[in-house]
């Protein structure tokens, strides 16, 4: 068996046919069906109980006036949705979420790319560069947010202390409605850019070296190679990173809730926080579910639009 296993290790990568053999009999197929569902069953149990059922139940709740006490469970039609669409706080938090997504996605992709290009030059101390850029991604949202609450402290924080050295007057970053969102975006950049950095670094390592050798023979310099080989080769990776980043940014909650509680004056409150507050401080499960479904619809629309856009471009 062990020699067969070794052979398989080298043979990996060949695609085994998953299609049924043409001689398969009805009896075999029934047996396979029983075995297949038995294998899938454990996953299916948790999948139905903790994803499918709550997803459908949430949809039902959104058409009721359900509260946490159990009262108000009767069907009220689209009343929650009508209320949500005329609720200024809902709109504000939706806009905040979109604004955060725009503000964060651009630097998160660009800085990740620059980091990967710089590290890929192969300077000594690779582990140290990777550690510096990727380590924050391993921190819990609470820990990263605590670090930055302290960095942003108006009197005692390092940000204002350093600005003071170069003669710029500091701000109360997290308390100022003009700066709070920017401050949150900077924290998010620091905390999560390591992930995009890593994906870009992997993509860079997968560019065939021969392309650089060939272009070097043709006399292309470093700068020219960057524009003619590296960046075009990173195109598909960038499309995927942007897609994942937009979807991740739209779900923002942790760091904002911890750093500003959505303030000052609701200027940073994201829509997930409004779902949370409607459900768990307002105890309006029905209304919270309606906002959750509006949010879900936005996510699906944006994901589908992005996929459509990118696949069409690939075929063109």
């Amino acid at each position, binding site marked *: *068996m062990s020699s067969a296993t070794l052979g398989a*290790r080298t043979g*990996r990568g060949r*695609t*085994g*046919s*998953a299609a*049924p053999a043409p001689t398969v009999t009805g009896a075999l*197929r029934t047996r*396979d069906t029983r*075995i*297949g569902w038995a*294998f*899938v069953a*454990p*996953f299916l149990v*948790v999948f139905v*109980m*903790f*994803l499918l*059922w*709550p997803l459908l*139940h949430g949809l039902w*709740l959104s058409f009721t006036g359900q509260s946490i006490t159990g009262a108000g469970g009767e069907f009220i039609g689209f009343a929650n949705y009508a209320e949500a669409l005329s609720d200024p706080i809902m709109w504000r938090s939706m806009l905040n979420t979109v604004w955060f997504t725009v503000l964060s996605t651009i630097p998160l992709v660009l800085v990740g790319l*620059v980091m990967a290009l710089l*590290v*890929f030059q192969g*300077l000594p101390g690779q582990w140290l560069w990777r*550690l510096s850029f*990727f*380590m*924050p991604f*391993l*921190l*819990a*949202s*609470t*820990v990263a947010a*605590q*670090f930055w609450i*302290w960095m942003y402290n108006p009197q*005692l*924080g390092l940000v204002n*202390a350093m600005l003071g050295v170069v003669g710029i007057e500091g701000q109360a970053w997290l308390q100022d409605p003009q700066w709070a969102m920017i401050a949150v975006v900077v924290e998010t950049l*620091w905390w999560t850019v390591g*992930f995009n950095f890593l994906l870009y670094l992997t993509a860079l390592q997968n560019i065939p*070296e021969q392309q650089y*050798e060939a272009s*070097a*023979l043709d*006399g292309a*310099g*470093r700068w020219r190679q960057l524009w003619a080989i590296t960046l075009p080769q990173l195109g598909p990776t960038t499309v995927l990173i942007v897609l994942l980043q937009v979807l*991740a940014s739209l779900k923002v*909650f942790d760091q904002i809730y911890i750093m500003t509680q959505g303030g000052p004056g609701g200027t940073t409150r994201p829509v997930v926080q409004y*779902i*949370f507050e409607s459900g768990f401080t307002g105890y309006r499960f029905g209304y919270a579910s309606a906002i959750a*479904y509006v*949010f879900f619809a936005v996510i699906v629309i944006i*994901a589908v639009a992005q996929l459509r856009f990118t696949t069409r471009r690939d075929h063109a």
Partner: protein
Amino acid sequence: MTTTVAPQPNAAYRPGPRRTGRLSAAANLRVGERFASPGRIVAIVALVVMAVGWLLPFLWAVVTSFKSEATAAATPVTLLPPDGFTTDAYTSVLREGNVPLWTWNSLVTAVAITALTLAVSALAAYALARVDFTGRKWLFWVIVASIIVPPPVLIVPLFYEMLALNLVDTYWAIILPQVVNPAMVFILKKFFEQVPIELEDAARMDGAGRLRVFWNIVLPLSRPILAAVGIFVFIAAWNNFLWPFIITSDASLMTLPVGLQTVKSAYGLQYAQTMAAAVLAALPLIIVFLFFQRQIIRGFSTTGFGGQ
């Protein structure tokens, strides 16, 4: 997985077009790399500045955690405390707070989530990849489609469900919803499809059942992907905030990220202790990362696109 450096010429030595042919081997070009071109110096400086910038918040937290409360709260801000470093903040946090308990809770729940996720996902992914059962296609489609569901959409009905199941403030309430990870099923299925089917066929000819083939042949061949998925799931579970925050109110059941959020106000203006608690919470994963950097990075780059 070592970083390959593409040999590139610079101003100091550039092979003439086509004339040199094979002569300009990579070795020659690497020699050329030692000469510093202006562009390269700019790149090095940029890299160092960015790395220092990225380490700064962490270092600042560490420095603060080794200050006395009085120095930490003193203006003007000093990098090095005039009264010397002290471990007082750590002693108080470890003696008075719940940090050790919360670390334990995080460990228990994250290990359980990882083990259960791997078990149920691998079984399902294997069947979806290899067993030709009725309903396989649409089941796979449903699982892939569910990847798009954002966890925040589920918090209200899930909480309702946990109330009904009488599981609020238990480990199970933290664990069970996090075991459902359709993206990992997708990644594992893609991998299992590439295991050479000839091996499985041979074993089945010898009379081995599906479960035996899965356990004795497929799983041993899949160690790298299982490790990658395991690492990804473990880190996500260790750091998860929203769901454990909603479902636990009993301080003795809180995970580390949730506990830290609740004591933020309890510590009040004790900055050194706040930072000591945060540093302690960050430490386990950073230590693990230092030891398993290669595996973790490989794990993230294989699961990254499927897993987000």
